Structures are given as structure tokens and as C-alpha cells.
């Protein structure tokens, strides 16, 4: 049996199993509010696993392992940022949020504000963050299909993206929060099991000696000591092509970009709406705290394992395999970025099969077919199972491939739930209906909006297949850190914060991040941009950083402060209620009287 067939069987088994869970959960949903909070009765341990499931997206599992496999140490920076970020959620956000909100991020932001403007802003940023994140996952799903199942036919990819979209709509509309939580728990369990299995197999190869593993990865990387040091991907030293000296300005910009990325990673997590609403699925703030503890334990262990997965792939899987081959010209000769055949000693043309015989200088000129490294983890699994063409290799590839699919599916369901909840509860019930909608009506709207949002993201993901997954995730984190986090923190801890402050901080942070991204090298001016730069072509990359956080996050805080101090609105009575509720959990889950 081929790994493709096996992979498909395992994936179908996962889908069927989770569908059973979701339908059972859907039947047990009694009140309409169960759609949003799953009845609020999950334990800290269950929710901790579910948070880990919601958080460890395909970008984490495939992206970080791939980045480490190709760029060495720099990939590890993602792991650290994504983990440390949880301390913001633990120390400042999880417990007060659980105590003072019910269903959405907007509940807390609008607690003591005028409802319509603040909920409108909260729903807007929830939808923007979630849709970027959704697109990243679904583009990733499409890419993974072609890589693992060997399907390169574009229409088949579109069918897969459509299938993923329809499945998640079923998960969310039938199971609501409870069903989605079960899916996350199963997925987190599978992902941890797969990662532990791979890690043990990698370490076993090196006698459980990390130093030997790193040494082997360095030797196989062809990059020497630099592979174990920061600087191959982020904060590079930029050499001026004319003088061959380090260009100080460009180098500084590149290093600031690294710091900016670090800011978005560490401050973005506690502003991700699909993570925030998970705190509502537990009954008390104590359980919310415990769930973050469990999540940190799981996520931390997982990101530690990315060291073994990434460096293991670098050490054990050949570069040619990681890159899915190198580009060749029409004559089948390996070529450089300009399309010129790479010579091998006296031989002018080097066929792909002889890539191993090239010297280091020639190897540096090779152009990878797939420079993302997104399939490093599945390829590592194949190698550890016995290699290509063996039964063991096929089984391992299939298992890890199916886990990666499950990962994507679960995150997509969590995101759809967050955005449809916010649409129904913030936008429909409070902005459009001004609080007169019945709970049943609200949930009906939430289910309809899940279908609509699912449909929109299917269409967007099909259109966005050329986009880089990491870029889309970075946008989501940067917007969450700039637009959501300042408003959440001010709401919980600043007495004078008011409607104008909330609205300005959300829109100010959101638009700063989006505008800077539009004028960044992500969109134009570089060979890797959305609009690839050609000599004499259009460019509008006025902002030199690829990561906007270093500017847009302070702007989000600044606009929140400015809006607050320029408006005379103060609601100290409601702040007293918010503060007491958030610290004690009094009147928990009861609607706020406006």
C-alpha cells in the first residue's frame, strides 16, 4: 500500500471519529449559549489541551520544523517567541477575561463603554485577524496536499481546500464550541504523540546526545558553524554589492526587522480572538489559569521538540529532498538563480543526480524548488521509518501527514468559531439589533455566519495559494498585537479608559499594521514580494521592514491613550463593577446590565 493511500485512510478515520464526537456534542448542547462557550464546563486540563490544539497550527508544526531544517538556529526564535507569549496571557489576561466576559473578546472591551462603536470595532478586528489566519491555514492545507499526496493538479487542490472548508463549517455549526473543543483535544493529543515519537526516534539515532545531533545537522547543512548561530534568516548582515562591505543602514533595518518580529510574536498571542474565547469554556478563573498552565506545559514541550525535529531533518534528510529538488534548465542541467547552468569542475552541465558531487561554492548557487521547507517534518518521518520506498517509511509518512491535516482542520474550526461568534454576538446582536435579539436568534445568525465565513475563506484561500503561509500568520499576529492587545489591557487595568480610547486603539493599531504591511517589502519591491519586483517595475515599499509590529504596536497603545485623554467620558461605576468582577469572579457568566 502506498503512503498516499494510507495517509488518506488515516485522515478519513480522523475525520469520521471527530464527526462522531461533534454530532454527539451537538446533541448534548442544551442552551443556545452552549454554542459560544460549550456550556462552560470543561476542566482546566481539557481546556489546556484544547488551547494547545488551537494554538499549534500547521505553521508551528510544519513551518518551524522546516525553518530550522533549512536555516538552523533562526527557526528556534519562532519557538521561543510563541512560547514566552503565553506569559502575557497567563499573568494579565486569562483570569480577568474569564471573570468579566461571556462569549467574545468584545464582551470585555465593551463592558463599560458605549456598546455599538466598541463592539463594531472588536468584531472588525476579530474578523480581520481570523480571516488572515484562516487563509494561512487553508493555503497550507492546499500546499500540504500537493506535497504529501503528490497531487499537483490545481483543480484537485481547490477541491481539497473546499473540502476542508466544508468540514470545518460542519464542525462549527453542528458542534459549536463543545464540538470544536473535542476536536482540538483529539488533535493536540495526536500532535503531541507524533512529535514525541519522532523526537525519540531522532535522538535515538544520535545516542541521545544533543551536541552530536547539532554537529551532524551543521555538517549536512553545507553552511558550517553559521547553521548553529543566529543570522541565516533574520537580522542578516547585508553586503553592499559594489563595495563588498557591510551596508550599515540596511543591516540595521534587517536587525530591527528581527526585533519587530519578536515583538509581534510575544505580544500577538494574548490578542488572538480564537485563543481568548477558549477561556470562556471553563467555569472559573482558577480553571482558566490551570488551562493556561497545561497549555504552556504542552506547547513548551512541543516547541522544545521542534529542535529535534528541525535539526533532525537537517541532519538526516538530504538538502535535495528538503528542498524537493533543485531547479534545472531546459537541458536538465542544475542552474543558478539567473538560469545559468552550474559547472561541476570541467563539466559545464551537472544533472540533478550529481548534486552531491558539487563543491561548496557551486552548491551555494543552487536554487531550491520549494524554499519553504514545509515538508521537513513529514520527510523526516519517512526517513526514520526506513526511507522512501519502504513500508516503514510509507507508514510514518502517512501518520505524520494525517496528523498535519488534522492540525490544520482543527485550527480552521477554532478560527471559524471565533469569527462567527463575534459576528453574531457583537455585530448582529449588539450593533445591528441593539441588544434586542433573542439568544436563539443570535445562535442562528452565528451558524449562518459560520457558513458564510467558511465560504469566504474557501474562495480567498483558493485565490491566495501563491502567498507565503508564514507571511499570513505574521500579519495575523501583528494585527492582534497592535489592534487587540492594547485595548484588552487598557480595558482591564486602566480606570479612565473609555469608548473613544477603545475605538481608536483598535482601529489605530489595526490600520497601522495593515497600512505598513501594504507599503512593506512583503507586497512590493523585492523578488519575493506579492508583486515580484522586476527591473523598472512598480514598487511602493516605503516602509523597509517586513514586520510592522515595532511601529504599529506602540501606535496601538498610543492611539488608545490619545483617544482616552481627548474624551471626557468616564464610567467609574462600571469600572468598579469590572474591576471587582475581574478580580473575584462575582456574578460570573451573568449578563452585564447596561
Amino acid at each position, binding site marked *: 500500500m502506498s503512503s498516499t493511500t494510507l495517509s488518506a485512510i488515516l485522515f478519513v478515520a480522523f475525520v469520521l471519529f471527530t464527526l462522531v464526537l461533534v454530532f454527539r456534542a451537538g446533541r448534548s448542547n442544551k442552551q443556545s449559549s452552549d454554542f459560544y462557550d460549550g456550556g462552560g464546563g470543561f476542566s482546566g486540563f481539557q481546556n489546556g489541551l484544547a488551547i494547545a490544539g488551537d494554538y499549534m497550527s500547521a505553521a508551528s508544526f510544519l513551518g518551524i520544523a522546516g525553518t530550522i531544517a533549512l536555516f538552523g*538556529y533562526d527557526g*528556534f*526564535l519562532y*519557538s*521561543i*517567541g510563541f*512560547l*514566552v507569549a*503565553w*506569559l*502575557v496571557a*497567563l*499573568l*494579565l489576561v486569562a483570569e480577568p477575561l474569564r471573570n468579566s466576559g461571556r462569549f467574545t473578546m468584545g464582551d470585555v472591551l465593551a463592558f463599560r463603554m458605549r456598546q455599538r462603536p466598541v463592539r463594531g470595532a472588536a468584531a472588525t478586528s476579530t474578523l480581520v485577524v481570523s480571516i488572515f489566519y484562516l487563509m494561512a491555514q487553508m493555503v497550507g492545507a492546499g500546499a500540504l496536499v500537493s506535497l504529501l499526496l503528490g497531487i499537483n493538479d490545481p483543480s484537485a487542490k481547490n477541491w481539497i481546500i473546499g473540502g476542508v472548508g466544508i468540514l470545518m463549517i460542519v464542525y462549527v455549526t453542528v458542534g459549536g464550541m463543545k464540538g470544536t473543543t473535542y476536536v482540538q483535544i483529539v488533535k493536540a493529543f495526536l500532535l503531541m504523540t507524533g512529535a514525541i515519537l519522532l523526537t525519540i526516534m531522532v535522538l535515538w539515532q544520535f545516542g541521545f*546526545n*544533543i*551536541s*552530536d545531533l*547539532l*554537529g551532524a545537522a*551543521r555538517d549536512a547543512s553545507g553552511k558550517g*558553524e553559521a547553521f*548553529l*548561530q*543566529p*543570522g541565516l534568516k*533574520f*537580522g542578516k548582515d547585508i553586503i553592499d554589492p559594489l563595495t563588498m562591505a557591510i551596508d550599515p543602514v540596511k543591516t540595521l533595518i534587517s*536587525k530591527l526587522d*528581527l*526585533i519587530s518580529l*519578536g*515583538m509581534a510574536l*510575544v505580544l500577538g498571542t494574548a490578542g488572538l480572538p480564537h485563543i481568548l474565547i477558549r477561556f470562556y469554556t471553563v467555569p472559573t*478563573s*482558577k480553571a482558566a*489559569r490551570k488551562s*493556561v*498552565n497545561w497549555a*504552556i*506545559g504542552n506547547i*513548551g514541550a512541543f*516547541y*522544545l521538540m521542534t529542535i529535534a525535529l528541525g535539526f533532525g531533518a537537517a541532519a538526516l534528510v538530504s538538502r535535495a529532498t528538503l528542498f524537493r529538488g533543485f531547479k534545472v534548465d531546459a537541458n536538465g542541467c542544475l542552474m543558478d538563480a539567473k538560469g545559468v547552468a552550474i559547472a561541476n569542475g570541467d563539466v559545464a552541465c551537472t544533472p540533478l543526480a550529481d548534486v552531491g558531487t558539487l563543491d561548496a561554492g557551486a552548491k551555494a548557487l543552487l536554487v531550491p524548488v520549494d524554499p519553504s521547507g514545509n515538508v521537513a517534518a513529514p520527510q523526516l518521518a519517512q526517513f526514520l521509518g526506513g526511507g522512501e520506498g519502504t513500508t516503514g517509511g510509507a507508514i510514518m509518512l502517512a501518520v505524520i501527514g494525517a496528523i498535519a491535516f488534522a492540525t490544520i482542520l482543527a485550527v480552521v474550526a477554532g478560527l471559524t468559531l471565533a469569527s462567527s461568534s463575534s459576528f453574531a454576538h457583537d455585530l448582529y446582536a449588539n450593533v445591528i439589533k441593539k441588544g434586542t435579539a433573542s439568544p436563539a436568534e443570535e445562535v442562528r445568525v452565528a451558524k449562518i455566519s459560520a457558513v458564510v465565513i467558511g465560504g469566504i475563506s474557501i474562495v480567498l484561500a483558493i485565490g491566495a495559494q501563491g502567498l507565503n503561509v508564514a507571511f499570513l500568520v505574521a500579519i495575523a499576529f501583528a494585527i492582534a498585537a497592535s489592534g487587540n492587545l492594547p485595548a484588552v489591557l487598557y480595558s482591564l487595568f486602566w480606570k479612565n479608559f473609555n469608548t473613544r480610547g477603545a475605538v481608536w486603539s483598535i482601529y489605530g493599531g489595526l490600520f497601522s499594521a495593515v497600512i505598513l504591511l501594504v507599503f512593506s517589502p512583503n507586497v512590493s519591491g523585492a523578488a519575493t514580494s506579492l508583486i515580484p519586483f522586476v527591473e523598472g517595475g512598480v514598487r511602493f515599499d516605503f516602509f523597509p521592514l517586513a514586520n510592522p509590529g515595532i511601529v504599529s504596536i506602540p501606535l496601538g497603545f498610543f492611539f488608545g491613550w490619545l483617544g482616552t485623554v481627548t474624551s471626557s467620558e468616564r464610567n*467609574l*461605576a462600571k469600572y*468598579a*463593577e469590572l*474591576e*471587582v*468582577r475581574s*478580580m*473575584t*469572579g*462575582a*456574578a*460570573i457568566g451573568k449578563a452585564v*446590565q447596561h
Partner: protein
Amino acid sequence: MSSKNEKVWSDTQASPEFQDLKRKFRGFAFPLTVAFLVWYFLYVILTAFAREWISTPVVGNINIAFILGLLQFATTFLIMWLYERHSSHSLDGPSDALRDKVDKELSK
């Protein structure tokens, strides 16, 4: 009804028990947040600007950059443990007592 509730909230907020709870929470969580953010950005800035030093090997192929990265993991787990201990020892009790008191007064 509503104004009676408002009084419960504002009276509780002004009570010494609540102010004490708030001080115990903020006095722990805020400095710790500043500390871990400073420590994290110190690490990021070192990886950006102190490449030579951070690349110094320590044990075998493990260099300072790896050690610092692993220390970030270690401090994250440590802070989690410290906060859990602080919460369960000093915050949960007073917070639950206040919650019961407030809920009783609200239902009067």
C-alpha cells in the same frame, strides 16, 4: 435594583479587602511581566546585535545562543510555577471570599 447593585460594586471596590487583593495581584503580576519582557527582548537584541558573543561554543556544539534560548523556556516554566504558587497561596482564598460576599449582597 441597578443602583443598589452599583453600590455593591463600588463599596466592594473601596473595601480594604479588595484593595489588598488588588495590590497582591498587581504587585506580583506587573513586575513579573516587566521582568520577563525585558529578559525576552534582551535575548532577541543579543541575537540581533551580539552575534559573535552569542555564537561562542560552551559544551560541544552547543553555543551561548542555544543556552539562552533554553533558558527562555526554563524561565517561562519557572514564572508559570511561581505565579501558580502565588495565586493558590495568596490570591484564590481572598478572591473567593469576596466573590461569595458580593454574590450574597447582589441576591438580597
